[in-house]
């Protein structure tokens, strides 16, 4: 078989089957590091085997069998050593000495992907470790690429991942899907990690464009997997809807040289209509499944924007209403700030200013650049060029993002020209 065809099949199997292969191997290996090594070896041996004998009908099944067999081999060889190592808590259901376990049908392998995801996003791990572990273990992204995605050095990221894995084994974080009672809370931790993954990719000016797009694609794939595996949990579909509707604007979000374009300045004909349609359908389904959670409500807000022909023709009262409901389930100052921005469109900038004054007293927003940036925009729209300029300067002091700074500088220059044209006060 041609080498490039095998390489392509292997790359595809890595993207779509890695989590399945690894999670099924963890159950046999009882140890994340051993399972990872065996899964990686399985992909390496597939290159030779598939070049000789062709790509198997079910590449995922082939890889899973290979990885699990490698794990069983290692366990038999190192049985004395293994006793000394801390094992993952849920015991292996496979006996490494039972030959029947060497040859099992694909269908009999339980889908352990959810166990893997819930273990990586366990609330007793640091939030940044959850996201890193999810990328590394669930998506199979090598550590140097994970480090690049989060703009930290490779040794820093390697240490972060090692520390998290060590806590999983030594503190005995169980390899299991939480029970019904704890599921919503634990799921929130998983969905938050996937959302953070997406946001990291979506934030303009943050690292290389190809790395960022890859992160968005990985997050979307994870959201799809979660929605498929836990359809009864409406928030999985809420998150998928939110990511689809946000990602639909990907091509329209930046102009030349990565310059950031706000919602109102985007060319809406460049929005991905197929993604919007899917996002709206998924979100409608989530909304119909009972009281909506925070991801579903955010998706609903993104949906209102996706359906609007322009910023001005957006159903702003509906957006404000959805923000009110969002605040009721997820009361954070950032949501309140976004609501205030929506009020400025629904009822005019003057109606939103008192809301911002109130938020300015919240210490959690003290260093948040979007607060002065929003105030600057309202003052600009009210014709207060001097006040707007002052707030733009404050926002520029606070932002660390190059694309956002460029945007703010441009706006500052505009209002400064306007202020210069005004008659001198007095």
């Amino acid at each position: 078989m041609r080498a490039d065809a095998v390489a392509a099949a292997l790359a595809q199997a890595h993207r779509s089957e890695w989590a399945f292969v690894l999670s099924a191997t963890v159950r046999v290996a009882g140890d994340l590091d051993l399972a990872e090594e065996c899964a990686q070896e399985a992909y390496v041996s597939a290159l030779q085997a598939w070049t000789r004998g062709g790509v198997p009908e079910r590449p995922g099944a082939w890889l899973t069998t290979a990885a699990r067999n490698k794990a069983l081999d290692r366990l038999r060889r190192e049985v004395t050593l293994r006793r000394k190592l801390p094992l993952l808590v849920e015991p292996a259901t496979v006996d490494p000495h039972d030959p029947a376990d060497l040859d099992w049908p694909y269908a009999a392998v339980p889908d352990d992907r959810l166990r893997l995801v819930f273990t990586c996003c366990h609330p007793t791990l640091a939030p940044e470790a959850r996201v890193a572990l999810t990328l590394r273990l669930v998506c199979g992204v090598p550590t140097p690429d994970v480090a690049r995605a989060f703009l930290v050095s490779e040794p820093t990221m390697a240490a972060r991942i090692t520390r998290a894995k060590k806590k999983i084994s030594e503190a005995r974080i169980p390899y299991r899907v939480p029970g019904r009672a704890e599921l919503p809370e634990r799921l929130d931790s998983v969905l938050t990690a996937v959302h953070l993954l997406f946001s990291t990719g979506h934030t303009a000016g943050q690292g290389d464009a190809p790395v960022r797009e890859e992160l968005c694609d990985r997050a979307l794939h994870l959201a799809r997997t979660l929605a498929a595996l836990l359809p009864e949990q409406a928030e999985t579909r809420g998150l998928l809807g939110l990511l689809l509707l946000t990602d639909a604007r990907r091509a329209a979000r930046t102009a030349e040289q990565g310059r950031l374009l706000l919602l109102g300045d985007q060319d809406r004909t460049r929005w991905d209509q197929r993604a919007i349609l899917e996002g709206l359908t998924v979100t409608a389904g989530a909304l119909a499944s009972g009281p909506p959670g925070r991801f579903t409500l955010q998706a609903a807000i993104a949906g209102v924007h996706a359906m609007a022909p322009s910023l001005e023709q957006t159903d702003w009262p509906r957006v404000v209403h959805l923000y009110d409901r969002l605040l009721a389930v997820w009361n954070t100052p950032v949501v309140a700030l976004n609501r205030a921005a929506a009020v400025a469109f629904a009822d005019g900038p003057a109606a939103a200013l008192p809301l911002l004054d109130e938020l300015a007293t919240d210490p959690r927003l003290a260093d948040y650049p979007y607060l002065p940036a929003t105030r600057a925009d309202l003052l600009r729209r009210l014709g207060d060029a001097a006040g707007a300029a002052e707030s733009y300067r404050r926002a520029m002091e606070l932002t660390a993002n190059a694309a956002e700074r460029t945007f703010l500088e441009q706006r500052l220059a505009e209002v400064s020209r306007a202020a210069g044209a005004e008659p001198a006060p007095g």
Partner: protein
Amino acid sequence: MAKYAILIYEDPAFYENISPEAWPAVVDAHSKFVEQVFALGGSLAGGEALAPPTTATTIKGGGTVTDGPFVETKEALNGIYVIEARDLDHAVEIAKLCPAPAPGGGVEVRPVVDPTTNPF
């Protein structure tokens, strides 16, 4: 089952200023906690209350003896339990019930190293 230590951190001033009438409630809370450990399927492997940090003596580097705790913080280690639990989820479920009534107080859960399975 694995062993976990539950370390209770609280402001010692709470116990210095507590009224004699309030003590029985604290003692009852701990008795109730011990019952709950077993009710939740765990077990108790040990536990002690510690005298306040004002009574502590610190020896650094194996030589210099000084008055006071190793680290000066508002919240001090006031007591420990050692429990047996299935896994971290189970240990956290139990530890959430551990009394730490002083304002700002709380507990820390630490796995106890098992010398037969851990290659230290």
